[in-house]
């Protein structure tokens, strides 16, 4: 890409971020908080940088990155599904499932080498999230259930089931709360900045971001994902197994969300607690919508939202502004991202689109049981 193209592609997300922050300013002004100190507290909390006198507080920067870590995974997961034309709002459930099975696997496999142990626990989390995503894929391709609806329901089911299991069969008896037994310290992801929650999971997130971005571009399967997402009809006509691609994309997306949960368990919580997924699953939607299709976009967008989350927390402590103002910024970004100014309307010549499949429903609850795969 040339320089002006890069600048142009940045214009839109920057506009979204600026509008979101302007909204925040408006809310602060409306409710009588001093905007200046609030924003400065937000900045310090988000970056750890203070200008007069110049000071760098590594704790805040590290804490922001600790927020960024799961956001990178969920944002990547949702973005990957977007690439395939799927709207995976099931990341919270997939993440919860991944966290639970990671914690169980880590606790159930004692006495092996630390690195192998960690890898197995991560794999368990990934597989569990993947299965949860795959379910939505099957429901979509085989039974025509739109993934948005199935994932909403599966989110609740995952939360309920894991809470039940964590308060019964896998409960740590020494605590009142529904949580599993603590995992061995050899399976902890090691801390990067002492005193903060930042851990090696961050490197893992960057690695996966690079890996997935590379694979989508450079493997034939990634190519199929993109083709299905951009033009399902063309992909089908060119002979791609569209249904299989859809199912695999949902599984991979769920798997990435599952790793987000696993990293939370291995890096921060060290056990499964009900509600461990927090808002990361939904926040990932904002990350993906702002970041778009590029890996760099996801990285910058996750950095923004992670820093915003910790910054807002710090701002609440310093200036008493409720940190939920970050949610408002996020909502604004989602809504702005949804406006389809970039999608050109295709002009159709009247009378030439008498296509036999024009009655096909491409809507949100469409029941597209595809014919291409099962012609018999």
């Amino acid at each position, binding site marked *: 890409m040339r320089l002006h193209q890069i600048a142009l592609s940045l214009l839109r997300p920057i506009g979204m971020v600026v509008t979101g922050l302007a909204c925040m300013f408006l809310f602060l002004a409306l409710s009588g908080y001093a905007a200046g100190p609030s924003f400065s507290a937000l900045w310090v909390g988000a970056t750890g940088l203070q200008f007069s006198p110049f000071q760098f507080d590594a704790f805040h920067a590290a804490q922001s990155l600790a927020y960024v870590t799961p956001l990178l995974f969920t944002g990547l997961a949702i973005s990957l599904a977007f690439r395939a034309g799927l709207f995976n709002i099931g990341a919270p459930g997939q993440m919860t499932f991944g966290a639970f099975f990671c914690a169980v696997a880590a606790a159930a496999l004692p006495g092996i080498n630390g690195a192998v142990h960690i890898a197995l626990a991560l794999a368990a989390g990934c597989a569990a999230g993947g299965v949860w995503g795959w379910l939505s894929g099957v429901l979509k391709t085989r039974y025509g259930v739109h993934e948005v609806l199935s994932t909403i329901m599966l989110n609740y089911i995952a939360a309920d089931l894991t809470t039940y299991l964590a308060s019964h069969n896998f409960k740590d008896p020494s605590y009142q709360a529904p949580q599993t037994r603590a995992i061995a310290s050899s399976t902890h992801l090691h801390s990067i900045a002492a005193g903060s929650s930042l851990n090696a999971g961050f490197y893992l997130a960057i690695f996966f971001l690079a890996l997935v971005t590379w694979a989508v571009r450079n*493997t034939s*399967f990634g*190519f199929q994902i993109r*083709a299905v997402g951009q033009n399902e009809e063309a992909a089908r006509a060119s002979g791609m197994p569209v249904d299989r691609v859809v199912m695999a994309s949902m599984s991979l997306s769920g798997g990435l969300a599952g790793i987000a949960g696993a990293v939370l368990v291995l890096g921060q919580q060290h056990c499964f607690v009900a509600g461990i997924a927090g808002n990361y699953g939904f926040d990932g939607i904002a990350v993906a919508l702002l970041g778009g299709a590029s890996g760099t976009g996801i990285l910058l967008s996750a950095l923004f939202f992670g820093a915003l989350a910790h910054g807002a927390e710090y701002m609440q402590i310093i200036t008493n502004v409720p940190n939920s103002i970050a949610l408002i910024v996020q909502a604004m970004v989602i809504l702005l991202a949804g406006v389809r100014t970039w999608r050109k309307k295709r002009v159709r*010549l009247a*009378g030439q689109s008498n296509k036999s499949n024009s009655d096909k429903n491409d809507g949100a609850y469409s029941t597209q049981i595809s014919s*291409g795969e*099962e012609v018999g």
Partner: protein
Amino acid sequence: MATGTEAVKYALRMEGITHAFPGVLANDHIHLAVRRGTFHAVIGENGAGKSTLLNILFGKFPPDEGRIWIEGEEVTGRLNSSADAIKSGIGLVSQHYSLIPALTVLENLLLGAEEQWIIPFAKAVEPGKKLAEQLGMEALDFFQPASQLSVASRQKVEILKALYRGAKILLLDEPTATLAPSESDTLFALLKRLRDKGITVVFVTHKLREVMTHSDAVTVLRSGKNAGDFQTAQTTPGELLRAMIGEKTGPGNRRESSIEATEARVLLEIRKLSVSTGGIKRLHEVDLQLNTGEILGIAGVDGSGQSELVEAVLGLRKVDSGEICLNGSPINSMNTGRRREAGLGYIAEDRHDRGMIDTFTVAENYVLGLERRKAFGGGLLLNWRKIAEKTRTMLTEYDVRLGSDGALTRAGSLSGGNQQKLVVARELDAQPSVLLACQPTRGLDVNASATVHQRLQNARDNGVGVMLFSLDLDETLALSDRIAVLYNGRVAGVLARKDATSERVGALMTGAVD
């Protein structure tokens, strides 16, 4: 222009109607004058501008130029929505979209014409019933969902719906396209009864036989222009056909096949293939054979079953019965991917829908569907350098000149001709044994068309069997070695090149002969 007395004779007059779509002048100063209480046919080939004319009349979009009178009163500029058209006494029975399947017959009748906020269904059904009786539809159940009606009854309900709103002029868009012959007869009987009651009927069709038997007057359109007005009683099918398809230029880019007929073997064999959509049979026991080194042209008016045939062969559509064999082995149970691997190439009718992905680069489009081939990376990975290299070779070979981005140009930004060359190149470079070429030159200029034609003939000379689906009869006649004509989902005839005159094919296409 129209004087007072003259205008009153006409239920509908249109003068100088012009409408352009990007790149196409769909209606070029068209005039249409329909006398009150007559049965007026509007005929023309695909793309002649009939649908555009109907849509203008029904308020879908205003004409760029031109004036319209209804019952002698000028309504130019007042037909801005369907509601306006209905108010002016126009009713449209279109092939698509009009009845809402989930609503009952009565609800469909009332929709948009409800008088009270709380709809008195029991009372509202009375005028409908009376109207239905007049039309000989006593058996109609007004409280049945429209989805349960047969195609023929659905159409009658559409007519009823228009009359219920007080339509004086009834427009019908290819009303018999989906009807069986006996149903068509019933429909025309009904329409004649309406005409005798003073309703003016305008119908658009491809079928000359219907025009000759049923209409009072005919307006012929060709390429967006008027091509003659006739009184049915004073004309012949031949005259209409000539007006409709004009002087055919004959073989332009044609080259004889270099493969002797004796060496030919069967590549694609279709046996008793039947296909239906939504309960309507679209293909009836179609038998076709495609041999090595030939171009088999499939002629037929739009909607005769071409797209169903293509989709069935590709495995994009379920078939009711019949067998499809490629290179001697049945492919019915294969999915599209396997069929493509087995040697099926496909140039899609609408390249933006199926042929390519506008948002992808030229190189990406060039490997679309071929991404697992060894030549492009070996299955798992994609070797973009190799792909770009191959794409560049292809671009030179097909004389596609791009800007500095070369193979990385967004395909959507290419001209239509270059896009089509890209699709043709990809499909031919995959070395298929059978190529389904659908409208391969639609929207292309002369040079691009010539390139595509040449490539198709080269492929044929190399032994590829090409099945050419074109709505442009000139193209079909120019390229084909044999021509099969589809009419209403059946093979109306298969002609050898030497027997296939434009009259003969045109007559088969429009059902003017049996």
